[in-house]
């Protein structure tokens, strides 16, 4: 299977992202998940039984901007709130408070998504593609429902999209299980892009793929992003993948952004101790014999049910002081980045 899409003709971006104007603006986004308690649980809790009544604070007071044609990378450990933030941006999930706007317009109104201009690609295309639906129907149903194409145009439209994601148009009548993981991810990308979105939210799009297939899918993403002028939120726990595709990067810890800035700056001169720890803990390709290529961060990720007071990173932070235990640091400018740390 070969890519039939021409390679990225634009090369790396030359215009500074800021010069392109804001596209997505998130303001003080917060999302909590309350436990679903049965009546029995409630009674038990009232009598002091150990029933979990605390809410999970998945995303807390997060503000950021994604500029037009920019890719913002989002990294952090499992459970830190990346997917929740991605679903908020995509309008799949409503915030508990705060808001998210696409060129000034709210992405959600009264619990409903207001736009088709934002589309999503998820980690597991098996879970996100309907197993009993042929992929031509999967790709064309959204565009037909929203009047982008007529039913008569669908076959040519599907063939065109399959070709653009590097699949043989002859596979249009297959079911998802008849594809490999990498091919399914191409179908998921075609389905999202067939809606002609301006913004693409990608949640771990290559996490379940082998290295060689991951490279193919990342190349497809880079090509289509350039060809279609997409603005992206790219979520991954893989720091090298995020570095590769992002103009700017946001680092999350326990539901908050702790550092955000130009990818090159965040990776080469990280300011937040957590960012530094995270980068140091990734094993690097070690080509010479003796270099130690990684250093673990001490301690465990605390539960999002009871984040530590003050700076949530303080129990694991080598620089923590009394101030850190008491007061939560706010995001503040450091060069072209913003960092939430008392001692950055």
């Amino acid at each position, binding site marked *: 299977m070969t890519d039939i899409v021409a390679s*990225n003709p634009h090369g*790396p971006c030359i215009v500074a992202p800021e010069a392109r104007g804001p596209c997505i603006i998130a303001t003080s986004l917060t999302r909590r998940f309350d436990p679903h308690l049965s009546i029995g649980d409630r009674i038990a809790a009232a009598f002091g039984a150990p029933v979990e009544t605390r809410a999970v604070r998945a995303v807390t007071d997060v503000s950021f901007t994604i500029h037009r044609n920019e890719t913002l990378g989002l990294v952090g450990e499992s459970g830190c709130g990346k997917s929740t933030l991605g679903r908020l941006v995509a309008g799949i999930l409503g915030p508990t408070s705060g808001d998210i706007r696409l060129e000034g317009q709210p992405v959600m109104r009264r619990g409903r998504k207001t736009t088709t201009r934002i589309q999503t690609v998820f980690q597991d295309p098996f879970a996100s593609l309907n197993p009993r639906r042929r992929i031509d129907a999967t790709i064309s149903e959204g565009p037909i429902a929203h009047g982008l194409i007529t039913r008569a145009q669908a076959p040519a439209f599907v063939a065109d999209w399959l070709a653009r994601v590097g699949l043989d148009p002859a596979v249009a009548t297959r079911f998802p299980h008849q594809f490999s993981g990498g091919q399914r991810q191409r179908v998921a990308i075609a389905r999202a892009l067939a809606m002609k979105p301006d913004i693409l939210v990608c949640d771990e799009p290559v996490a379940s793929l082998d290295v060689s297939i991951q490279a193919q899918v990342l*190349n497809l993403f*880079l090509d289509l992003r350039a060809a279609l002028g997409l603005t992206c939120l790219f979520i991954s726990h893989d*720091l090298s993948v995020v570095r*590769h595709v992002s103009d700017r990067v946001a680092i999350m810890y326990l539901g908050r952004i702790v550092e955000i800035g130009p990818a090159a700056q965040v990776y080469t001169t990280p300011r937040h101790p957590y960012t530094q720890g995270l980068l140091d803990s990734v*094993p690097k390709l*070690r080509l010479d014999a003796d270099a130690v290529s990684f*250093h673990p*961060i001490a301690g465990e990720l605390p539960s999002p049910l009871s984040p530590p007071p003050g700076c949530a990173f303080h129990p694991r932070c080598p620089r923590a002081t009394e101030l850190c235990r008491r007061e939560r640091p706010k995001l503040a400018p450091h060069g072209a980045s913003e960092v939430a740390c008392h001692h950055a």
Partner: protein
Amino acid sequence: MTAPLLEVTDLRTHFFTRAGIARAVDGVSFSLAPGEILGLVGESGSGKSVTGFSLIGLVDPPGRIAGGSIRFDGQELVGLSEARMRAIRGKRIAMVFQDPQATLNPVLTIGTQMALALQAHRQAHGRVTDRAAAERAGAMLTRVGIPEAATRLNNYPHEFSGGMRQRVAIAMALLNGPELIVADEPTTALDVSIQAQILAEMKSIARDSGTALIWISHDLATVSSLADRVLVMYAGRIVESGPVGAVLRAPLHPYTRGLLDSLPAMAQPGQRLAQIPGSAPSLLALPAGCPFAPRCAHADAACTTPPPRIDRPGRQALCHHPLDAAA
């Protein structure tokens, strides 16, 4: 030179399915010294796990070891009775799986499970007292970085986080002081910070106790920071082997080169990655000759015949056109 602890020669593990014979492991040979860490890398389906299962005698039908030899400390394991294999498995050779759920029993406390694992191999020396078992179990949990080990023995598996559960599984593997641990992608599902903690622990265990380790992974960076030597597997064969630094600096096999080059770390940010075209072949329909040929930029007419074994000092590869030969 120390005698090898493990010597695998021409191992062939095949699955006799209705659709045909899947040669999941097809002529694998390697050896391992005490205390050595060997990385086994390759894409999914290349036969890494089946190799690991073969070593501990846990290949399920329709699969079986169809040929070759596995000598462990001088003893032949291929053809050994299940009873005698059981005496070795868990005691002298332990396995850690990608999913700790596979090792841990959800309805028993960690302490109970560890005591049972200890008893299972101590009949010869009489029963281990509960006190002694708890002490040894607690020491092992501490060894893998679990705080307050003595109280954690009373916890059930679900009371641990994913990373902690994997550490418990490793502690179980260490309990009987095995000479060899086969670890099958034990950190793949874990976060980088937890992965780094486990890698650091494994490294010191191999160094301090002389335990040999086979680390199965698809992640070259992880293997490069942990292993002494690396085996690269493709379609059931070891296509390249050698010291990890030498192999990654200058691969002999085009597949190894391709794997390395497809890593984002090897490219300029934002630029297209070098990609290996196509995908892994079906074991039921392998091309004649080199199985990598349909994806290989160096393939020519010679590659339709089985590739020869190329020997370099400390290194080997299976290829008609090794990359150190002048083009």
